[in-house]
């Protein structure tokens, strides 16, 4: 592909993702899709568009890129916006440039803290430590409730409260003495069930795949936003599964709040808030995280959301409709 074709590909990938994401979000709301697992299915449809469908359209239908298709058959052609220019560059070119910068910014917003976190040496993990017995017992109970084999428990003595799962080939749950001290028995069981639900769904592997998709589509802001939405859905799905397994949704909500309060603001380097960009971003990011936790707790206070009927049929119809529509968008 020459440079022009790459620009057309990037433009279509960005525009198709935006249209697919907006259509999917409208359908999710209008159809009342509240179950997080079903929402993930719809959002994966929008995410798969730039990764699979747009390359397939480029390879299978090269005629879509011809001027005749653009001028006579397309219902929208981005290149028509190049008829209007600013500083000698067509508006379509400006749009692709601005969107790519936004996509890169959103990607770096998560990549940089992740790379920084990898450089921080974690506290030593102590397998079979005496203080870990309550956590091991709670983990076994939670695994039994979920009907899966209990994974290994990595124990961290002291430090801030931590409770998360990790590992794609060798999955395990990591927790610390301070987390066990912070949570009561029911909250600990529910929080561990939440992490086990992640492992049951192979979410650590999924998160690597999603990070790969983000890296591949670094220029696409729609992909960056969609992956974040899917990650939130994964949390909600694990919440629902844990609530179902433990039978105590309130304990999970309570544990979630306690852990959030105990860990909020942790990990900020000294002086990070004084740097202009990080100071400007810290507040909205913290607010967004707090909003996420609030939404999860609100969802756990209510009954489990009912699945929408004919979900697969709706998904297939949405995919077919989007396919037909976006074929004529170049």
């Amino acid at each position: 592909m020459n440079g022009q074709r790459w620009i057309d590909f990037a433009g279509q990938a960005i525009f198709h993702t935006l249209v697919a994401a907006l259509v999917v979000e409208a359908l999710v709301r209008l159809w009342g899709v509240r179950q997080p697992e079903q929402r993930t299915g719809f959002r994966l449809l929008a995410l798969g568009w730039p990764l699979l469908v747009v390359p397939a359209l480029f390879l299978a239908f090269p005629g879509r890129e011809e001027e005749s298709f653009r001028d006579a058959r397309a219902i929208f052609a981005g290149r028509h916006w190049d008829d209007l220019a600013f500083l000698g560059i067509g508006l379509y070119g400006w749009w692709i440039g601005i969107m790519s910068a936004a996509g890169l910014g959103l990607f770096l917003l998560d990549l940089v803290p992740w790379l920084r976190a990898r450089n921080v040496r974690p506290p030593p993990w102590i397998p079979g430590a005496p203080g870990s017995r309550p956590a091991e017992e709670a983990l076994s109970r939670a695994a039994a409730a979920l009907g899966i084999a209990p994974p290994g428990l990595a124990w961290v003595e002291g430090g801030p409260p931590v409770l998360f799962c990790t590992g794609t080939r060798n999955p395990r749950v990591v927790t610390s003495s301070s987390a066990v001290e912070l949570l009561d028995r029911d909250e600990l069981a529910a929080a561990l069930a939440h992490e086990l639900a992640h492992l049951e769904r192979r979410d650590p592997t999924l998160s690597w795949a999603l990070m790969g998709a983000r890296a591949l589509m670094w220029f696409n802001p729609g992909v960056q936003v969609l992956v974040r939405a899917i990650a939130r859905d994964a949390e909600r799905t694990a919440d629902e599964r844990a609530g179902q397994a433990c039978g105590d949704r309130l304990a999970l909500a309570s544990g979630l709040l306690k852990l959030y309060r105990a860990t909020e603001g942790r990990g900020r380097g000294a002086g990070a808030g004084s740097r202009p960009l990080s100071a400007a971003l810290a507040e909205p990011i913290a607010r967004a995280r707090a909003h996420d936790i609030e939404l999860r707790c609100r969802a756990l206070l209510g009954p489990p959301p009912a699945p929408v009927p004919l979900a697969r049929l709706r998904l297939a119809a949405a995919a077919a409709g989007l396919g037909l529509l976006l074929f004529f968008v170049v």
Partner: protein
Amino acid sequence: MTAATVAGATGSTVSEGARALWTLALVLGGTTVALVALDAMPTWLHGQPRGVRRAATVEDAERRIQSRVLLPSYFPDTLRWPPAEVRFTRDGGGSVALTFLGTDGAPDLVLAQTVAGAGPIPDGLHGRLAVIQQQSAPLGDDAVLSRVVAEDGTLWSQLEWTRGGRRFLLRGRGSLENLIRMARSIHGERR
């Protein structure tokens, strides 16, 4: 489960499916309308009629309509090359219009032509002006020479003729002699 219950459940599923499809149709329909409007916006902002597109160069227009544009070999010094505006439409088999500026920077000449067929050149491409005088011209049987008046009140000379299965229009502010000479030079005639 009784037959009535099964029938009720089936009916409910069918109506649920129909409602879902109706919602999908509405969302996709709304999206289509929004996309069509977004696509038409650059043309609208330019004040160009529907179906008329701009091209960066004559070559760009030729590539997009997949046909050669016939140009005059005689080009007076009072005109600036390249054309200031290249517009084309696919309507009616395809037509192109080139606008040339004079040395004073104002539009001085419009050359429009169909690229397939001798049908009329769409008015939206070159802007139909009020004819105040008309007579036959020495360019062929159907050639017409007119005096037309623009919206700003300026008078232009306009030649319209058909040759080689194409319809041509040449409109200029300059001398009539130059206009006829340019028209002839399009077809390789010297005078």
